[in-house]
């Protein structure tokens, strides 16, 4: 497949605006500015583009709600709070192809009639902040941002806003709270941000990768875009592969590529001649898969049929030496640390799950621990306020389902079979 999101990144100067323009950059912006906002939204809707942050929500629908809302000003917010453990794809776009993101944002802003945009960048990427600051300045200097973009009377400004280390701010309403200078705790939905977002105004929150698809959709049109990926989930996808593979990295492939192909063909398979033990396919909030399930196609629609989820496309590959209880323990330390404290099932649930796993790892021989983890998990899934608490138990529950003998071995024999 031709590279779209990672086009030209082998070029060491790919982030430079001159290189970007030389390779056809900002041409699609001019095309878009000659269209009506409604026409752009229609094209994005027809393209079938779904949010790449993990939710898979149709992008065009979000835009349409915001455009039709009578309130103004409207805001376009780029979610660059890439925090799902195992994920590093947005970092690559922002480091190597930042003008693609800016071009996508300007088009999106024009389509929803927003004159102001924010990039909410995670605090853990200070070196990306430097790059984006320069990118934004270059775009202003060339007249792609400002009061009169490309002489077409369109206004759009971008402000870079840096987070300070809170996973929950990847959730769009928590992100909005954070932009308003508050603790990043999620809001109740509805109202959705597209009607009532930052400062109470219509706000579209889109992921970096999602927005970076926009110029290409404008360039080739929805009909051609639909030929990439699957009919239900069109387009390219950035898959992040880490862990025990020969070639870890970001791979741009059609949406719906099988997990097997990604791991073995692209990432080179398991390293050091070891056996594959398990794969976390979409970041640590998605259920784990055993080796017999890796023929699943990695997209939003098919992954649930295999008992997992696409998530952010963060694939963590683990070989036979890994103790899955230790992985669960580390994941739960993360969720307990990142729980924002707003709702009880998540705040207390993550802690109790963590304590239970730690007790099993100490060899406390309590047979009822497995059942209590399963029960706690189902309560958290049903009763948590936002996706953090709903998905925090996924890894543990799926590990019990697929690798129960490993739990039992820890409980009964006080040792790990791996």
């Amino acid at each position: 497949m031709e590279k779209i999101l990672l086009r030209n990144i082998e070029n060491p100067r790919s982030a430079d605006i001159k290189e970007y323009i030389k390779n056809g950059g900002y041409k699609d912006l001019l095309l878009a500015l000659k269209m009506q906002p409604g026409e752009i939204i229609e094209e994005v809707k027809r393209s079938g583009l779904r949010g790449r942050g993990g939710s898979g929500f149709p992008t065009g629908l979000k835009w349409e709600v915001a455009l039709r809302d009578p309130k103004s000003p409207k805001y376009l917010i780029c979610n660059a709070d890439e925090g799902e453990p195992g994920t590093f794809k947005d970092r690559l776009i922002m480091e190597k192809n930042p003008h693609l993101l800016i071009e996508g944002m300007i088009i999106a802003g024009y389509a929803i009639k927003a004159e102001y945009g924010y990039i909410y960048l995670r605090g853990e990427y200070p070196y990306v902040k430097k790059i984006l600051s320069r990118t934004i300045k270059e775009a202003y200097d060339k007249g792609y941002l400002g009061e009169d973009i490309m002489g077409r009377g369109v206004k759009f400004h971008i402000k870079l806003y840096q987070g300070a280390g809170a996973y929950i701010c990847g959730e769009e309403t928590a992100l909005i709270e954070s932009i308003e200078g508050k603790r990043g705790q999620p809001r109740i939905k509805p109202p959705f941000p597209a009607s009532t977002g930052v400062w109470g105004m219509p706000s579209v929150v889109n992921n970096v990768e999602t927005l970076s698809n926009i110029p290409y959709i404008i360039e080739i049109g929805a009909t051609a875009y639909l030929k990439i990926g699957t009919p239900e989930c069109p387009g390219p996808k950035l898959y992040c592969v880490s862990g025990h593979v020969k070639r870890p990295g970001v791979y741009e492939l059609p949406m719906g590529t099988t997990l097997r192909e990604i791991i073995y063909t692209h990432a080179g398979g398991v390293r050091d001649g070891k056996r594959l033990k398990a794969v976390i396919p979409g970041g640590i909030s998605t259920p784990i898969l055993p080796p017999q399930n890796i023929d699943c196609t990695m997209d939003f629609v098919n992954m649930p049929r295999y008992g997992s989820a696409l998530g952010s496309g963060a694939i963590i590959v683990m070989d036979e030496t890994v103790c899955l209880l230790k992985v669960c323990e580390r994941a739960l330390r993360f969720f307990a640390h990142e729980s924002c404290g707003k709702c009880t099932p998540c705040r207390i649930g993550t802690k109790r799950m963590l304590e239970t796993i730690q007790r099993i790892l100490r060899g406390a021989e309590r047979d009822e621990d497995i059942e209590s983890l399963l029960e706690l998990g189902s309560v958290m899934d049903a009763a948590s306020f936002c996706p953090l608490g709903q998905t925090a138990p996924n890894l543990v529950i799926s590990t019990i389902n697929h690798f129960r003998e490993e739990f039992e071995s820890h409980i009964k024999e006080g040792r790990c079979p791996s």
Partner: protein
Amino acid sequence: MKQQSEKNTIIESLIKKYKDEKGNVIPLLQDIQDAFGYIPEDAVDLISKRLEIPESKLYGVATFYAMYRHRPGGRHLIQLCTNVSCMIMGAEMLVNFLKNRYGLEEGGTTPDGRFSLMIMECIGGCDTAPSMLVNNDFYGNLTKEKIEEILEKYK
């Protein structure tokens, strides 16, 4: 005394920079931390007075986000990731190495004030795990030898 007034001048000028901006608390706290290495109590006190935001609210924000520090630290901040991708690639061994070689504990500072250590949740360097930040610089594919070599650069 002079030091205190210099400190106040810096805080006042930062407050002025953000005074008329919406949602100013987070970037302001960030700038305060960049200036002092942590968020001093008297900064919170001044922000509260000038921006008319209750101190309790400011502390609510300042303690919510993991990257804000509330005590002075070392000259250089090491932020080592130990989340799943880094863990399975050997990050725990590096935590032990920092402890044995430099006497660095999580959240602690070396006696000579050279380094502080923060254990991080995923810093997005999973393809080059284990990874860390030293101040604003990113380093991946870490080993004990490599960490020792990198830290030599930070005096």
